[in-house]
């Protein structure tokens, strides 16, 4: 097997809000089909890192490269292009409240990719069926459960054909009984070879899903490695210590 190509390369990201430095030089590379899980204490900068990667938050310094091409963050066109190719799933779903599930998926296809109404709807129905919501296309976000909302959000992002998916605690805002349906969708994506970085507090997800674990603390990636290296029996890593503390609290999403 040949080594997989590098899709995304992030180098030396710095970000502060006022005097508060959140990211202190974060670098990572993501290969095609690779899945990295991002864990770490609350406030450690996981969300900020993910939002910097597709420039929802502009980093002060550092570079982001897709397929070896460094994105010029000053150029709006390149910025919009980057965001289109790097999809984002939010903890709070962030569905467009005034649009049906179907319209939530079609709107960016229409506005950004200039799809016709017919082809956008066709594509949207396909994506919604993929996440098991083929029968909910005409419902509004307020009429959906949390798990359904998150699945619409996933369909909405996938419809743009992203090459990388960033997931920011996709199950943390869900009632425990709804977590499973979203996890199932994420696992199906992993099986199809989707490249992902997922921030999570759910340690049980790591072993089954991640090839690589990033442990983030105080604005840097403090440890990284395979789940075995960091969480294998008898390992005395900080990641292990953090996970033990989480488990003591009952394996909870925050």
């Amino acid at each position: 097997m040949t080594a997989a190509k590098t899709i995304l390369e992030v180098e030396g990201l710095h970000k502060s809000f006022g005097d508060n430095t959140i990211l202190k030089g974060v670098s990572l590379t993501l290969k095609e089909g690779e899945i990295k899980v991002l864990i770490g204490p609350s406030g450690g900068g996981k969300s900020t890192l993910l939002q910097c990667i597709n420039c929802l938050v502009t980093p002060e310094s550092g570079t982001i490269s897709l397929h070896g091409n460094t994105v010029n963050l000053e150029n709006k066109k390149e910025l919009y292009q980057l965001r289109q190719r790097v999809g984002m799933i939010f903890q709070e779903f962030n569905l467009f409240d005034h649009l049906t599930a179907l319209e939530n998926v079609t709107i960016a296809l229409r506005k950004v990719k200039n799809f016709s109404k017919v082809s956008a709807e066709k594509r949207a129905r396909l994506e919604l069926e993929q996440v098991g919501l083929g029968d909910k296309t005409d419902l509004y976000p307020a009429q959906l459960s949390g798990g359904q909302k998150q699945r619409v959000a996933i369909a909405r992002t996938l419809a743009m054909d992203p090459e990388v998916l960033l997931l920011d605690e996709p199950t943390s805002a869900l009632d425990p009984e709804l977590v499973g349906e979203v996890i199932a969708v994420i696992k199906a994506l992993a099986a199809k070879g989707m490249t992902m970085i997922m921030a999570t507090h759910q340690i049980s997800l790591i072993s089954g899903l991640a090839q690589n674990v990033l442990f983030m603390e105080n604005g840097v990636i403090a440890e990284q490695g395979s789940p075995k290296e960091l969480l294998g029996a008898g390992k005395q890593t900080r990641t292990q210590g953090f996970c033990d503390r989480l488990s003591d609290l009952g394996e909870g999403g925050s």
Partner: protein
Amino acid sequence: MYASFAVIIDSFPYLIQGAFITAGIVVCAMLFGLVLGVCIAIGIIYGPRPLRYLLNLYLWIFRGVPVLVLLFLFYFGLLTYLGLNLSAFASVAIVLGLTTAAYQANIFKGAILSLPRGQFLAASSLGMSDIQAIKSILLPQALRMSIPAWSNEYSIILKDSALAFVIGAPEIMARTQFIASRTYQHLPLYITAGIIYFVLTWLGVRLLLQLEKSVRIPGYSDHGTNP
């Protein structure tokens, strides 16, 4: 008593024509104010600093100076100074439009800022430009939320439009005053004018309530929150 009725009946068609002119002024002013108000609100929220200062200054002026002063300033002052000729109708519509734009800008600004920031982030994350996100995601929701406040503003502008009589726009008030000065039937005439204003207010507010209901997002309660 009989004379009063006779005057009302005789002058009723004339007054109703005035009602149409009043309605015309108000509709023009409100729509002008809507477009300008949305632009000002967006400029204040997303614009660069100098533009924000300029727009805030605009809000202060148009909220701080009485409409009557602005109307005289525009009609007798500015138009004469510039050597322009504009009808009283157009002048009133413009001045009321500029005034209500200031108030409407505040309504829209509040509505846009009250929307969860996440939806804008989500739109951006899909590759939408800021303008696309504002147009397709924020405005449709902000405008829906603004309808009750907008309906309030409508009733205020409707009543302010009576000031148009001072520059001779042939609306309800001017016509009422004209007939009253000739017939001396002030009491019944002004009661009639009052009733016409009341009916116009009621009609407009009802219509906007209907609009609010018809565009309400399914699944949301009256207050725009999850049931």
